[in-house]
């Protein structure tokens, strides 16, 4: 065939991918959103640049200090810092969003080496690789200044260490990409990530609680962990440099060889994953499960909620199904209890300076937990159509008024908050002590007022500034920026009013007075809620084109 060479040119293909990436970047500038994104990236680039150069200088100085002061083994600590940053930062930053589908590349006549190289090169152009390389460069220079004769050896060891990190990061991502390709594995991975984040929250309180006194077992555990540390790549790289500094070249060479074996092993694993992609693995989401005739023919009825109109009950059921299938959302709902636990585990000193404020004033635990539960819920309330995405079209073609649709959603959110407040109450009873009756009453009425006000504003903002979200994926549940700012303003107003109310109650020395005032405020908020609900059909109809355009986008 004319014009078609027998073997596609790898350089040409790499160039084509580079050009298309540039073209995508340029086309992205056509929209204001795209331009803002570029500005944000520019700022990020400057920040990462500063972190890279600053870290490089710091690590270089530290390496020079360790080598020139006879503590060369401590370079291992520096290499572990580089390693952990290099591997963990991309995971945190990507927030489990869906990745680019590699099958886009596979339809072209790419040889496997080309495909491998493209995935490796373009996947590695990220801040962690650039910062990691700068840091290792700093380390090399630091070692070189301290002991010039070992500069090239350190450069070689750290170069292999850099390659190991690049390959490992790509290998981890290639496997994560595999798991993210399917909804179920994506959600499991998200849940694991969330548990990791929650565990992270406990480090601070536990350190401040137990860190002041040296634990007798700590030194023993550290001593036991050291041999394992030395057998891992950061430890091996450090050992290769340290042994060479001490003139033990054979062990240094051995450590370097083992480090290289690690790099080769990771290369092999990456090769296995990418080859599976290259040969066209099937990651279909369609379930092939067969069911029994009994299960197949079972009559499934919708919920029967007496006293609630059919469409409102149907909305309630649908919302509950949606939330119950969202791992990330379910995890956020336990956060109020987690926050109380973090406070509970914090330092419990006798003075106000030493202790956290809840152990100083445990009466506030219930209001704080309930307020936090409300804050978490605002994310749902202020963008309540976001998760419906293209399903939003159905609300416009079905014979149900928007006020009923919103009532169904609001009822779900109110019930959810009620459950959370009860859960917080029990958690407070268990972790601190049962809240006083007047505090409970004031908190419940305060929450009722805040909820009604938030629902009122949330219903309007859900229609005026909707944003498509995904309950099942991390980092895809944020409302629009306008909604976030409006929501913040409303929270300031709500908490301001609550503070004034509590101040009045405190001045008179009667907490139940706060409950009374909150009840009046809740009445006013209820009127506002009803007024908004009455007008919401008109607003939804006026905003129809914009809402559907936003929520139906791919």
């Amino acid at each position: 065939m004319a014009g078609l060479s027998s073997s596609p040119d790898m350089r040409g293909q790499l160039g084509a991918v580079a050009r298309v990436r540039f073209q995508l970047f340029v086309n992205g500038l056509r929209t204001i959103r795209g331009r803002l994104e570029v500005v944000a990236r520019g700022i990020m680039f400057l920040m990462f640049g500063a972190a890279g150069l600053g870290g490089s200088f710091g690590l270089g100085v530290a390496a020079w200090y360790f080598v020139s002061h006879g503590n060369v083994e401590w370079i291992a600590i520096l290499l572990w810092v580089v390693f952990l940053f290099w591997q963990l930062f991309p995971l945190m930053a990507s927030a489990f969003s869906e990745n680019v589908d590699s099958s886009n590349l596979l339809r072209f006549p790419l040889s496997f080496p080309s495909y491998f190289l493209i995935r490796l090169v373009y996947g590695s152009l990220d801040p962690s690789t650039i910062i990691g390389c700068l840091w290792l460069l700093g380390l090399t220079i630091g070692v070189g200044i301290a002991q010039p004769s070992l500069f090239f050896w350190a450069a070689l060891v750290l170069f292999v260490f850099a390659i190991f990190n690049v390959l490992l990061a790509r290998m981890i991502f290639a496997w994560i990409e595999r798991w993210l390709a399917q909804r179920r594995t994506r959600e499991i991975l998200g849940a694991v990530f969330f548990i990791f984040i929650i565990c992270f929250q406990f480090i601070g309180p536990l350190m401040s609680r137990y860190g002041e006194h040296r634990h007798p077992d700590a030194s023993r555990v550290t001593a036991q962990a050291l041999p394992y540390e030395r057998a891992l790549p950061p430890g091996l790289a450090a050992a290769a440099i340290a042994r060479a500094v001490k003139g033990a070249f054979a062990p240094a060479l051995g450590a370097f060889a083992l480090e290289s074996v690690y790099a080769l092993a990771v290369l092999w694993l990456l090769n296995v994953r990418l080859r599976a992609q290259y040969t066209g693995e099937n990651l279909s989401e369609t379930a092939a499960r067969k069911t029994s005739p009994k299960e197949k023919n079972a009559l499934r009825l919708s919920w029967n909620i007496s006293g609630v109109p059919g469409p409102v009950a149907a909305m309630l059921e649908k919302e509950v199904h949606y939330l119950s299938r969202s791992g990330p959302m379910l995890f956020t709902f336990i956060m109020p209890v987690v926050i109380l636990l973090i406070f509970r585990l914090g330092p419990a000193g006798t003075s106000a300076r030493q202790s956290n404020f809840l152990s100083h004033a445990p009466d506030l635990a219930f209001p704080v937990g309930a307020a936090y539960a409300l804050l978490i819920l605002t994310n749902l309330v202020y963008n309540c159509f976001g998760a419906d995405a293209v399903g939003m079209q159905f609300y416009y073609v079905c014979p149900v008024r928007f006020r009923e649709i919103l009532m169904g959603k609001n009822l779900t959110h109110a019930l959810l908050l009620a459950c959370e407040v009860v859960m917080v109450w029990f958690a407070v009873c268990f972790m601190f002590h049962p809240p006083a009756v007047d505090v409970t009453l004031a908190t419940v009425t305060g929450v009722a007022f805040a909820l009604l006000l938030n629902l009122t504003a949330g219903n309007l903002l859900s229609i005026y500034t909707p944003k498509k979200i995904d309950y099942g994926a991390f980092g895809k549940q944020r409302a629009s920026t306008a909604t976030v700012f409006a929501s913040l303003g409303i929270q300031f107003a709500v908490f301001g009013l609550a503070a004034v109310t509590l101040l009045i109650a405190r001045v008179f020395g009667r907490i139940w007075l706060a409950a009374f005032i909150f009840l009046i405020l809740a009445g006013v908020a209820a009127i506002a809620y009803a007024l908004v609900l009455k007008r919401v059909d008109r607003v939804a109809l006026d905003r129809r084109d914009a809402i559907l355009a936003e929520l139906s986008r791919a």
Partner: protein
Amino acid sequence: MDAPAIETQGLTRRFGDLVAVADVNLSVAPGQFFGFLGPNGAGKSTTIKMLTGLLSASSGRIQILGLDLGRNPVDVKRQIGVVPEGMALFGRLTGAEYLNFVGCMYGLDRETAGKRTAELLDFMQLADQPKTLVTDYSHGMQKKLAMAGAVIHGPRVLFLDEPFEGVDAIASGTLKAMLQRMIARGATIFLTSHVLEIVERLCSHLAIIHRGRLVAQGSLEELRAGVEAQAAAALAGTSPGESAVPAPGEKLTLEEIFLRIVGGTRGAEQELSWLG
């Protein structure tokens, strides 16, 4: 005399300076299987969106079963079923949950909704995977579910935007059987499709929109007669090879009628010498 199932007067939609649909006057009688055709970007989806309440009209009037859509949106929507372009599905429900939900939103009691859900899932061959979420369905399964959702309340008028797009032959056969059953029971169906063979086989009446304007409307025979008459009138000025009049005993297909009305050429004559 019955009011038209669908009637528009001066229906227009502008997007800034672009007039996507201009002064469209449609009339669809009750019981008709109506095909709405047009090239890409002609205004088909915009029109069907306006007819179903998914998009506001810049001007003009829409009447469904004699009711003004603007004034009685809820009453109109109670009597129509819609499969829009995006299918309007809720991904994180199972098929049964989705149909139950849709049934209740259309005002069915829970027993009726549950019974019809089971029947529809069975008819559409979706009952095998009761616990699979809609988001995990294949495209064809989603199309069938969307269709099931559109008919669960027994609508008198059904609007379908590209119902056969991405659907395999088996699913397509199921959908066609259901649509023909609905027509036999007196329902009106309004569909847009690029698959002209299917439209020719199913639809009794057609309208063709081109660059936002309605350029033809009537039964297939009326459209055919119109094209042939035009061709005959122009015959004197053309060479025999270019004549649009078919040979005796031959009928113009819908594809030929369509291409002649919208003035399209397939470009097959253009030379792509490198293509082998």
